[in-house]
């Protein structure tokens, strides 16, 4: 039951974020700062632009030590082309005080960022830190933003009112053109529209800027901005990365398994379409654990209807990664 609602909730969240992403893409083409100008009359040009975007590396912004993806096109690209899922961690502008449905940025696991970097599909860039901690300046920024939001709200309200008027007028002219029926109720509605109309605050569209217009993202600038950020390379990270690489190569989709007490959740396809089959636990092949630990894992797996997968990179390169499944026996 819990699994179903989780999947449903996620599906809705994704649909909503998809819609938001679509909307924002329409609105934000100017602010994306693409170096190639869009010529809507020439289809081949747009096709070229699209192909260029798909082959050029995505920008992973490292905030502190957390790798983030901001642009909707990049999120889509890494998910569709590389099977990298990540986790959405941003507040939604119109539904801020909840964490059931979240938006951009997409937070990547260290292994995901490393895979993108190693395969040349991404460039890691140090994210912009807040330049000034001065409270005064922050208050000013906040005030100007609130003013901007208010202005946008009023304008949207005006546009919505006009749109509604247009709709009612169209209904009047179309429906009552040939008929003798009176269009009195609609006329009344039209006349009282201005006074009775209210544009709810929650329906307001809020534009979120996730790219700078001026920054060209040309290769030279990208390389200059690239961080020397190196991922922590202790033994545990190495084991996790090797397992991640191998599973990804086999075509599985991988997300974090914090809720389940393991390292990764393994899906046979996109997490929107499938329940997870396995909880992966990455251990070095020779490290010993008490048998009670294995029993804990197996019990956990039995409770959530997933198989526990013990994953260890082999010490011989040829064998890759060794997998062993642990399941409850079913013997009561």
């Amino acid at each position, binding site marked *: *039951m819990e*699994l*179903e609602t989780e999947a449903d909730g996620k599906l809705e969240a994704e649909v909503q974020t998809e819609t938001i992403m679509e909307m924002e893409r329409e609105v934000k083409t100017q602010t994306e700062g693409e170096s190639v100008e869009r010529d809507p009359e020439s289809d081949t040009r747009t096709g070229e632009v699209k192909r260029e975007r798909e082959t050029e590396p995505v920008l992973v912004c490292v905030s502190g030590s957390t790798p983030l993806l901001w642009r909707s096109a990049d999120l889509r690209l890494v998910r569709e082309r590389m099977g990298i899922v990540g986790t959405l961690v941003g507040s939604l502008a119109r539904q801020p005080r909840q964490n059931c449905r979240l938006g951009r940025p997409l937070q990547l696991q260290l292994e995901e960022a490393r895979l993108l970097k190693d395969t040349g599909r991404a460039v890691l860039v140090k994210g912009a830190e807040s330049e000034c901690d001065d409270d005064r300046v922050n208050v000013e920024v906040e005030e100007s933003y609130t003013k901007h939001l208010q202005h946008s709200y009023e304008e949207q309200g005006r546009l919505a009112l006009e749109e509604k008027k247009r709709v009612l007028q169209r209904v009047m002219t179309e429906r009552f053109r040939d008929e003798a029926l009176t269009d009195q109720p609609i006329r009344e509605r039209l006349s009282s529209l201005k006074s009775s109309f209210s544009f709810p605050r929650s329906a307001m569209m809020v534009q979120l800027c996730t790219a700078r217009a001026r920054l060209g993202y040309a290769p030279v600038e990208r390389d200059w901005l690239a961080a020397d950020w190196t991922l922590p390379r202790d033994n545990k990270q190495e084991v996790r990365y090797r397992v991640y690489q191998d599973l990804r190569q086999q075509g599985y989709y991988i997300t974090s398994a914090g809720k389940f007490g393991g390292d990764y959740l393994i899906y046979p396809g996109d997490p929107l379409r499938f*329940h997870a*089959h*396995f909880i992966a636990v990455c*251990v*070095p*092949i*020779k*490290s*010993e*654990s*008490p*048998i*009670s630990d*294995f*029993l804990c894992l*197996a019990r956990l*797996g039995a409770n959530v*209807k*997933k*198989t526990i*997968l*013990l994953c*260890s990179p082999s010490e011989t390169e040829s064998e890759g990664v*060794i*997998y*062993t*499944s*642990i*399941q*409850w*026996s079913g*013997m009561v």
Partner: protein
Amino acid sequence: MERVGGSAEESGDVAETEGSGAGASGTEGDIPGNWILQHHKYRELMALDVGDTAQVYAAFLVYLDLLEERRWQEVTSRGSAELQLVYLEGRESESQPRQLIVPLPGQRSLSHQGVRSLLSQPGSDGAPSPSLLLAAVAPDSTLAYYRFSRGFVVPEPPDSIQALECGRERRKRRRL
């Protein structure tokens, strides 16, 4: 879970105290207090001369559980010199294939490599089995069985999907 009382390490002590108790009461009949130590199967397992007392004792408890409680068929024991333990093979019922059961005391530690070497043990037909049952024996003699298999074993679908499939099957049958 059958509770047979006493831990393997204290088996010597248990024998002494139980023996004296039985002797004193005299109402238990002729069953000696240290009956486990005198059981022919236990002696047979000890005679294999692999594994420490704790592991042999664990194997014996699992043997009794499989035969007496779960009514498994053709339960046989075997010793592995390289792994230094006693393990069992048996069949859940006549229609089921033979399985490998590895009894281990719960306090033992195991590595992934250790699990793999257990899995590589040849069965009665000579080939290593794809999975084994690990029987973990707790100090209070509680038994827990878990299955280790090579590779990826897809789990059962969640209840809601199973219900859906059952419903579909029933509807199909009704139409036919």
